[in-house]
């Protein structure tokens, strides 16, 4: 029977299958952060269980950590400090791999995993975090789990799962200038809705996906969860293998050859059967922004704020509430929306390529907003950006140059919006209060966020690109 990529990875990891189709799935990599793990480790202590495979378990604090240079003196917020200290202690007590705040390799868990070569094609990867989907860019089956499941994986290295359905999202042709991976992933959610992928694992394919770098592919898969899917996948190819080769935890020598031989078989068979197919033309995708409080509230930057009455069902009320929360009126041009804050970072867009794209727009210019910050996704991304001179471009333009962490993506650390503040953000969620109570978030690509920083309003990157330097 022809198989999809998802079918192949799934089949390679089934430990046991019950008569009703419930499976025990083996987990190759378990990533852990400080917010969703304390209760799981506590559960192990209470029941006297150990971590079954500490060598396959990687922990890093990211959500709570301050991103200011003084953070090594300690975390001021007591609850955050307790949570990070709990992770320090749990990592030590249970003997898992650990990147503490003081380690240059520390960063957002979904950036650290691929960077260190923990994430490899054909693996199953889980983390108590919905954006685990990011790792799907390597052709790994990767998804978020809850804390009870974190404890289950710690104790058994398996997960009780039922198989999802197969969905194919094809992006044909090439992207136009100024259009990025972020615009692809937001446009897909705009087309399918935040529940469009519920019950499915998505495989992204097509020429526009193949043409993306690994960084871009991670951006696309990162937001599979915003489309409701359990996971997003992209078949590994030469770019994938090149990215992986030589990373600290990637296989070497004969093991590399053996791994490569298997990885090359990891693609959907040509006659594989799909339960759902969505196709977008790469040429049709515009630079987009979100206007509301759900990631499906996506429009091309050239559009106007929609009228809630133009929707149907429960969405009418949700759109009304969103406009009220966002302080917008129907019919307003998106490019007339003024912003006061810019946030560049997160596991969606905190990698080196994202910083390069933003810096290219900012070079030699000054920001026109109250506050702008760049938060590199890891200490290593930060170091590389400094080496390439990007940090200086950001600083000269008026950006704050921060240390690695989740930061204003979810504002669990001190980086937050105040009520009514409006932010151009490269992160992945625009929910009410996500970036701070009463804060208003517009999601977009790093280049678009940089352009917004320069003009103080939502801006079409293509206009900035057209200007003579």
């Amino acid at each position, binding site marked *: 029977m022809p198989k999809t990529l998802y079918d192949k990875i799934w089949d390679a990891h089934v430990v046991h299958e019950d008569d009703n189709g419930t499976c025990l799935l083996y987990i190759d990599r378990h990533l852990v952060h400080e*917010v969703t793990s304390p209760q799981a480790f506590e559960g192990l202590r209470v029941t006297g269980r150990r971590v079954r495979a500490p060598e396959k378990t990687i922990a890093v604090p990211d959500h709570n950590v301050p991103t200011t240079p003084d953070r090594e003196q300690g975390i001021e917020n007591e*609850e955050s400090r307790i949570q990070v200290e709990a992770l320090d202690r749990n990592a030590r007590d249970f003997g898992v791999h650990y990147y503490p705040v003081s380690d240059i390799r520390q960063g957002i868990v979904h950036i650290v995993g691929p960077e260190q070569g923990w994430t490899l094609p054909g693996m199953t990867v889980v983390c108590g975090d919905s954006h685990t989907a990011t790792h799907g860019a390597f052709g790994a089956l990767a998804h978020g789990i809850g804390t009870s499941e974190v404890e289950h994986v710690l104790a058994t290295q*398996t997960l009780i799962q039922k198989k999802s359905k197969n969905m194919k999202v094809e992006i044909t042709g090439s992207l136009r200038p100024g259009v990025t991976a972020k615009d692809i992933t937001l446009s897909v959610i705009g087309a399918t809705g935040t529940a469009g992928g*519920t019950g499915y694992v998505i495989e992204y394919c097509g020429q526009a996906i193949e043409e993306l770098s690994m960084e871009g592919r991670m951006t696309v898969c990162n937001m599979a969860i915003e489309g409701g899917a359990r996971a997003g996948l992209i078949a590994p190819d030469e770019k994938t293998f090149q990215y992986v080769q030589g990373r600290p935890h990637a296989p070497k020598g004969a093991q590399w050859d053996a791994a490569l031989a298997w990885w090359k078989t990891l693609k959907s068979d040509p006659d594989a059967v799909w339960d759902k197919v969505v196709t977008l033309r790469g040429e049709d995708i515009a630079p987009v922004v979100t206007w509301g409080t759900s990631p499906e509230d996506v429009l091309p930057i050239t559009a106007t704020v929609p009228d809630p009455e133009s929707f149907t069902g429960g969405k009418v*009320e949700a759109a009304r509430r969103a406009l009220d929360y966002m302080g917008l009126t129907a019919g307003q041009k998106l490019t007339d929306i003024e912003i006061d804050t810019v946030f560049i970072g997160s596991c969606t867009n905190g990698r080196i390529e994202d910083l390069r794209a933003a810096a290219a727009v900012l070079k030699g210019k000054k920001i026109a907003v109250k506050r702008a910050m760049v938060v590199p996704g890891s200490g290593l991304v930060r170091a590389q950006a400094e080496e390439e001179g990007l940090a200086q471009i950001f600083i000269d333009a008026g950006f704050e140059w921060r240390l690695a962490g989740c930061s204003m993506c979810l504002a669990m650390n001190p980086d937050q919006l105040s*009520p009514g503040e409006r932010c151009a953000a490269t992160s992945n969620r625009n929910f009410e209060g996500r970036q701070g109570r009463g804060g208003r978030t517009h999601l977009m690509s790093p280049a678009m966020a940089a352009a917004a920083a320069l003009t103080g309003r939502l801006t079409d990157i293509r206009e900035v690109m057209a200007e003579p330097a």
Partner: protein
Amino acid sequence: MEKFTPLTGIAAPMPLVNIDTDMIIPKQFLKTIQRSGLGKNLFDEMRYTQDGREIPDFVLNQPAYRNAQILIAGDNFGCGSSREHAPWALADFGIKVIISTSFADIFYGNCFKNGMLPIVLPQEQVEILMEDARKGENARIAIDLESQTVTSADGQVFTFEIDAFKKHCLLNGLDDIALTLEKVSAIDTFETAAAQTRPWV
């Protein structure tokens, strides 16, 4: 985990679509290292003003719904973050059943790990139950997991689908980890074989 027993109770109506886990329990309450005590912060930013006073309009602040055990919710309930703090907060408040046309995947799974039952019903039936819920204390909805039924206030019976394994665990209050550890020899066998076929993992 407690066994899930038949339940008859008051339902709170929350017709909004796409209620996300950031709304259910905002991130400032994720800093706890415990599971309990989150009920007072359930729906915090919708429920309280910035200085901590109750917003009287919010459904769970209305006298009729303070002891609600059932939520009737709009489409795609529980989307967003994987935080299990969301079902913890709902459970701590006293919610045992959530009924909607659809749930986000991770949230749906998380409910079962905490003795809660998420029920998917078709739109028309959810609307009937939503009407019941709007009647506050004047309407009681009954849930029976064994027979997989929801009975509306005026006696209409709706049946729902549920995975047999999840039902079994919920009815018997079974702990997943203990169940899986019964299969530990299968895990050992898998690991030994994988060490041969994929030694780089």
